[in-house]
């Protein structure tokens, strides 16, 4: 059964100025782990790419040691003590947002800054975004389908957008 409404990080491509402030905020606040991926569309745009915390998550399905688990609130949580760095989830992820850390060779992924959510604040990347491109908003499954057409929007715009 699809959930009616969940809180997710949404990127407005028309506002992202590729300043990497979200990367830095994420890196600084997650013990220097690198949890955000970058998306390159036609090698012309450099946009932040978050874990979507999918409703039916392929990464959770394939993890052989249950290091990835889906919480009740829909957040996909990564347990770094269990992770053996097999990279199965990186291959399974349809969005390519899961990547291995360079040093420990295990996965680091977006946790939606759940420590802040509990305090009623937004994730750090959203709060730091200087151009207002990232927002943390309630979305429905139908909204999510509509939002998936990023590539075509970029192509439709002149020059780099």
């Amino acid at each position, binding site marked *: 059964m699809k959930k009616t409404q969940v809180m997710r990080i949404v990127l407005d491509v*028309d*506002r992202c*100025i*590729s*300043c*990497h*402030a979200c*990367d*830095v*905020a994420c*890196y*600084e*606040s997650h*013990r220097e782990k*690198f949890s955000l991926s*970058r998306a*390159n569309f036609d*090698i*012309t*745009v*450099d946009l932040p790419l978050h874990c979507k915390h999918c409703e039916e998550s392929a990464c959770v399905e394939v993890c052989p040691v249950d290091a990835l688990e889906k919480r009740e609130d829909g957040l996909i949580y990564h347990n770094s003590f269990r992770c053996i760095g097999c990279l199965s989830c990186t291959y399974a992820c349809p969005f390519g947002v899961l990547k291995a850390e*360079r040093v420990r060779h295990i996965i680091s992924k977006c946790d939606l800054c759940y*420590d802040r959510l509990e305090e009623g604040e937004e994730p*750090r990347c959203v*709060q*730091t*975004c*200087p*151009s*207002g491109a990232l927002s943390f908003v309630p979305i429905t499954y139908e909204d999510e389908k509509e939002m998936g057409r990023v590539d075509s929007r970029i192509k439709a*715009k002149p*020059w*780099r*957008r």
Partner: protein
Amino acid sequence: MSSIEEYRTTCPFCPVHDKLILKRKPSNNAVFRKSNLFGLYYDKKNDRGLCARGNFTLELLNSPYRNRNVKVKGKQISLDRAIKKCSSKLKNISKERNKVAILIGGNHTLEEGYLVKDLSEELNTELIGLFPFEDEALLSVKNDFSFEDLKEADLIFSVGDVFSHSPTLAKSILDARNKKRGNRLLALDIIRGRISPFAESYITPPGSIAYFLWNFLRYLDNRENFELEKTALGLPAKALEEIAGSLLKCKNGWILFSNIYGHFSSPYTIVFLLEKIARKTGNHFAVLPVGQNTLGIGRIIGKFNNSTIINRLKNGDLKGLLTLGANPFELIPGFEDISSNLDFILSTAFFSSEDFPGYLFPSTFSFEKEGSVISLEEEIETLGEAVPPVGDAISDGNLISKLLYEISGKEVKAKVLPIKPLEWKEVKEPMVPSSLADKKFPFIILGFGLPFHHGDGEITRRMNWNKKRGGPYLFINPTQLKDLGLGKKVRVVTPYSSSEFKIGNINELPFDIPKSVLAVPTHYPESRKLFGFEQDRDGFISPGALRARLE
């Protein structure tokens, strides 16, 4: 368990003064680095967060590479002994007039500005210089800026890449553009920068903006009998007409100017003309300096002698140099060659340098001192000491007070004077720009700014995505790069100097570089030294685009 103290303070990296909260445990004076405790707070100014540089505030504050002790030629000495030695040396060399020069940065507080003025009188010198050098041209402007009103603008005309130099203004600017159908964002620059994809972008050849604006002003005066084709400088002839029409039609229009080292030629002329255009068209005009408090410091000191200082350094006429807030070897191109002419060098800097030939004092961050600064809105903001300085670091204001006490033997009370913009001086008609390149130097090199570096890039280079980058990098048109068949490294030669660069991937940046143009981020010392140190037509050290060749 000890309580946690919170300090509301401002980001020190640019004049926007974004708000942030520092949290620390009073028991060990440690600032929390790992940042469950690092936060931002909203206010009418930033309304959002920090840019990439601002997010690295704590990394800079807690950097293990920070200078914590006074050093003389790499050897550590006590603070009191260093001050005594420095003051006796300064006393000796300042017997003759104008033998000592002081360079002050745009990130100092107003109080430090007053003290520098007092110190110059005590040292019998009028040679005070300001850095960042490109900011000197902005000091005559009375900023007509308001964070609240900017969001309500129906037209924003940006000259220079505002999104790269002050990224936290991006939200206000984009909010204004998106607010109503018909609101516009125009950008005038010499290359397509970070703001260009969001704006109606007008690109003129390097070195021609002043000439373009001169003609623009003439066109505003006499629109009937103006030959558009002759002055449009490679733009469609209607560019002048379009910009003028938009500026005259709008009700709440804004003109913003943002420069960086090696980008615009004759910035003083550009600022002078933009101010006139803003007045003529009834719009707001504001400049965005590089330094946090350039507008305040510049107006307190009043007159700077940057070019006289550099000339005297080259001729060996100076005996002593004080650079407050920067290492002169990173600041002044070719300082290695001229430093031997000096008897005495005093510098305050964040990072230590083992082979520094003079007295190197540890510098304080703006969170570690008290004082006041001028905001973009021309209001005075006070800064409190949020955390105690590391090691032996003392603020430049305290250092100057101690030096003055040792030299003159009396307590220092800085004279507080009114802070007002400097007087405008008339500008000459800009020359018709011809191509800068010639047979010997077939390329044009220009500087640009990136939002995710600080200083020489050491700070944000620790990021994973930046580690692989290293530096220094040079960016070139990808088609031309393919045609030239260059390797991974290349040497750039200008009439002033030469440096080696790695070839950067332009696709990593939202920039578009035309053919025969080389673009270098100017935070690298290797880039800065290429631009030399010459006065422009208005008497400022503000190098613009230059001729160059590749080897």
